[in-house]
C-alpha cells in the first residue's frame, strides 16, 4: 500500500464515526437570525441619523420572509442591526411596521451615540416561534402575550401567529428615562401595538 492509499484509509477511519447532527439546519437558521440581530456598523450609522432628530422612531428591517427585524439583548447595551441587503423603514408613532401599527412611542433622548437613543420595533413573521427559540419569551409576563425581558429594555408581544413583535429601547434612552419609566414606556408601546388594516 502506498502513502496515498494509506492516508486515504487512515482519514476514512478517522472520521467514520463523525456524523452531522440532524438539527444542523435548525442551528444554522437560528445562528443566521442571531447574526442578523447583531449590531453592525452599517445599521448603526443609519440609527444615528434617526436618533439625532430626538423623535420617536420605529424601524422595520426586512430580513426575509420569516424574520423581518431583530434586536438582541447584550449585557451592556441594547443593539439592533441590519444586514447589508435590508431596507430600513422609519416610522413615527402611528406608523406601520410589517403589518403592525405602532400606536405609541415615547420621546427619546437626543444623543450622539449611533444606536442608543432609538427604539426598535421588529416584527417576526412566524409569530412566537423564532422569539420562543431565541428565549425572548422567557422574561416576565406583564400582560397577555406580552413579556418583559430581564434586562428591562426589551418587550415582546405576540399579536398572532404571523406577527410577533419585539420592541427594544436604546441604552441612552433607557438611562435617561430611568428603569421604572422604561418599563412603563415599554408596556405602553406594547399595548399600543395592533394589526394594521
Amino acid at each position, binding site marked *: 500500500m502506498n*502513502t*496515498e492509499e*494509506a*492516508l*486515504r*484509509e*487512515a*482519514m*476514512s*477511519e*478517522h*472520521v467514520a464515526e*463523525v*456524523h*452531522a*447532527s440532524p438539527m*444542523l*439546519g435548525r*442551528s*444554522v*437558521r437560528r*445562528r*443566521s437570525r442571531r*447574526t442578523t440581530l447583531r449590531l453592525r456598523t452599517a445599521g448603526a450609522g443609519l440609527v444615528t441619523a434617526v436618533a439625532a432628530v430626538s423623535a420617536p422612531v420605529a424601524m422595520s428591517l426586512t430580513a*426575509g*420572509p420569516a424574520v423581518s427585524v431583530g434586536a438582541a439583548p447584550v449585557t451592556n447595551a441594547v443593539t439592533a442591526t441590519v444586514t447589508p441587503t435590508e431596507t430600513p423603514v422609519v416610522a413615527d408613532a402611528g406608523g406601520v411596521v410589517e403589518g403592525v401599527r405602532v400606536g405609541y412611542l415615547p420621546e427619546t433622548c437626543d444623543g450622539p451615540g449611533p444606536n442608543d437613543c432609538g427604539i426598535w420595533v421588529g416584527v417576526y413573521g412566524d409569530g412566537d416561534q423564532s422569539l420562543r427559540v431565541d428565549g425572548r419569551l422567557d422574561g416576565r409576563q406583564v400582560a397577555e402575550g406580552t413579556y418583559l425581558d430581564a434586562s428591562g429594555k426589551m418587550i415582546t408581544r405576540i399579536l398572532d401567529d404571523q406577527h410577533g413583535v419585539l420592541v427594544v429601547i436604546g441604552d441612552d434612552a433607557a438611562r435617561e428615562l430611568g428603569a421604572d419609566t422604561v418599563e412603563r414606556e415599554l408596556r405602553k408601546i406594547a399595548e399600543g401595538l395592533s394589526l394594521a388594516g
Partner: protein
Amino acid sequence: MTEEDDAAFDEFLAARSTALLRTAVLVCGASPHDAEDLVQGAMEKVYRHWARIRHDNPEAYARRVVVNAAISRSRRKRVLQEISFARPPETAVDTPDHGMRDALMTELRKLPARMRAVIVLRYWEDMSEAETAAALGCSAGTVKSQAARGLARIRERLLEGVPV
C-alpha cells in the same frame, strides 16, 4: 427566501452535511464538536446566499466555505499552540504506539493548513487537481506541488520514526 429554497437547503444539508463535517474535521484537525461549530458557521454563510447559489453547484461553494474556514481555524489554533508550547516540557512524554493510522493522522496534522487541505481534498475527497485548485482558489500547479511535498513530508517523518 422562498419555502422551496428552504426545503432545498434542508435537502442539501441532509445529503452533504456529514461529508462537509468530515472534511472540516480532517482539514482543521479539530474535534468533531469544534468542527460542527465551524460547519454551522460556514453553512450560515451558505444559507445567506442560498437563493442565489442553489442552482449553481452549491456543493462546491459550500465546500469552499468550509475548507477556508477550517484553514483559518487551523492557523489560529497553530498560533495558540506555538504560544502554549514556547517552553518545551522538561521531561519527554511517552507516546504509546497507536499504529499506522494514528501515526499518519499525527503527521497529517503537522502539515501547514493549506497543504493539509490539499491532501484531504485530493486523497480523501478524491477530487482532481483542477477541482482542488478551484476549491482552494489556487492553480492546479500549486495543488500538484503541495500534494507532492505533503506526501513526501509524511513519508519522510514516518520513516524517521521507524525503529532500526
